[in-house]
């Protein structure tokens, strides 16, 4: 589910702006670091830390977008891939310099640890919390996109950017805000998931494949897609590790290849 929170921003960014942002994991990592640092150094409570993670990362992404990303919108895929890889390299170097090689510890508040008793079985409270949170997130995102004006503009711009511009939609601002939202969500996801996906300097690279898998399978530009995809991956991964530990992550990769062969645009993507 963490994958979802992080990846949905990527799906929208890529679907909307057509920009291949491999450095998305960097935003997630930043969020995780912010939470950890905030709680450790300043003793701020968990919820505030989450909010900070979202806001600070979103702000940072705005700066990056204005300075760097926006120059490359028309530059073609290779340039975007290279640029974001460069961003990854630079970021992980900075992370290692600033934070060292350890992971950023995140101590969950007491009310989220322990077990929760549901339907006769015990579930880790935090995981339940995550699932609830992600579900609320997807519902609010869906509402936001389907019901609000902002959402309508986003959808219009995804479908046909030039058309949207000529109708008077300020696509630059729209992109900026959506990018900020997507990146902020990544930061939030990184912070939320810090307990499960430890945050350390190699984070953006380590999980890059998974983010991309979720987005590819889910389909670019869709909101439901990554949700289903993340769900499937999470289940498959856990099931695989439980039953056939030697195979490790194979099932996920194999399933990815299989699904993409069958539906190259992803489960919910727009058929080009």
């Amino acid at each position, binding site marked *: 589910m963490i994958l979802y929170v992080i990846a949905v921003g990527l799906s929208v960014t890529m679907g909307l702006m057509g920009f*291949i942002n491999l450095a998305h994991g960097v935003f997630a990592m930043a969020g995780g670091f912010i939470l950890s640092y905030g709680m450790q150094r300043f003793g701020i409570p968990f919820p505030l830390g989450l909010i900070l993670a979202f806001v600070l990362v979103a702000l940072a992404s705005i700066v990056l977008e204005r300075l760097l990303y926006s120059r490359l919108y028309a530059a073609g895929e290779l340039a975007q891939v290279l640029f974001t890889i*460069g*961003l990854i*390299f*630079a970021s992980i*170097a900075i992370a290692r310099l600033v934070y060292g090689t350890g992971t950023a510890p995140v101590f969950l508040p007491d009310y989220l640890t322990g077990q929760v008793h549901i339907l006769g079985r015990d579930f880790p409270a935090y995981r339940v919390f995550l699932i609830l949170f992600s579900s609320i997130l997807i519902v609010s995102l869906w509402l936001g996109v389907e019901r609000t004006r902002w959402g309508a503009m986003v959808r219009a711009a995804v479908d046909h950017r030039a058309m949207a511009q000529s109708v008077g939609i300020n696509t630059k601002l729209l992109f900026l805000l959506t990018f900020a939202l997507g990146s902020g969500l990544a930061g939030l996801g990184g912070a939320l998931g810090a307990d499960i996906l430890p945050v350390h300097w190699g984070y953006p690279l380590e999980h890059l494949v998974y983010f991309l898998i979720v987005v590819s399978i889910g389909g670019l530009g869709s909101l439901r897609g990554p949700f289903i995809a993340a769900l499937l991956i999470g289940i498959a991964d856990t099931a695989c590790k439980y039953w056939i530990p030697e195979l490790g992550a194979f099932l996920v990769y194999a399933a990815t290849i299989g699904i993409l062969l069958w539906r190259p645009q992803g489960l919910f993507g727009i058929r080009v």
Partner: protein
Amino acid sequence: MSGYTVDPRIRWTEYLPWLIALAGFFLLPEYLALGARILIFILFALSLDLILGYGGIITLGHSAFFGLGAYTAGILSAKLGVTDNFVQMAAAAAAAALLGALTGAVILRTKALTLLMLTLAITAILLEVANKMSSLTGGADGLSGVVVDPILGLFRFDIFGKTAFLYCLVVLFLSWFVVRRIIYSPYGAMLTGIRENTARMHAIGAPVYWRLLVIYTISAMLAGIAGALLTQVNQFVGLNVLGFEVSGELLVMLILGGVGRLYGAFVGPAVYLVAQDYLAKQFPEYWYFGIGALLIVVVLFAPGGILGLMDKWLRPFKQKRSAKASAR
């Protein structure tokens, strides 16, 4: 550089790389190990340029073929006792080509992001396999005990690295020759067409998928050969040959030199590895940052790489020369 209007004869500037290499051999004997490494990565970069610079396929998974070639050679030697260098190399080439054909068949049906992601996934799978099958691959410790017979029964791998260097040079030369022929041939022109405007290529009846598959396989094979060279020269192979860092660094090297122009693959790795040898030792923590920043700068301001910049600086001179010629 490809196409029906270019002169395929070898220009005098094309002799330079080889002259420089030979000069290095005689004048800088302490650096032969680095030199061999540069040659290997030039070959690796050439293989990537074929598919990326000419075919227009963006891949981050080329290290899969490199690593497979490296491990094939290593396993053949350390585990199966096959020590003839030609056999090791041929096996590596075959294995990499096979993987290239199989994976290419799958991923070339997809585009852009999906393709990119699949290339990453494939490399990740191979890394997992190499890690898990540690009895065969040595796992995280790597595979040592790689033995290579004297080449042609005559040239032993000496501790000064002389044999290694010349061996790599010869392999590179032969590969370069093949790649150059492909680029200047109608096939190369057609690849450029695919890169420029794939839809148009479909519309003129070109079986794009199959043509790309062929070049992808060739590219994979060359990468595998480069990997085998690395193992043979170092007599060791570790998991790092399969990592994302290798693919990423290769991409940096190629961009640095200039994509889609044969000699970018020569300039890039040379500059990168020399810089790495010097700078990474001095300031290891800042190296990755430097690479990242360099990549960003290059993409934003010099997308043609070093050779692209040279083109720009030399253009006024070229124009003057042709202006003079036409004025006569």
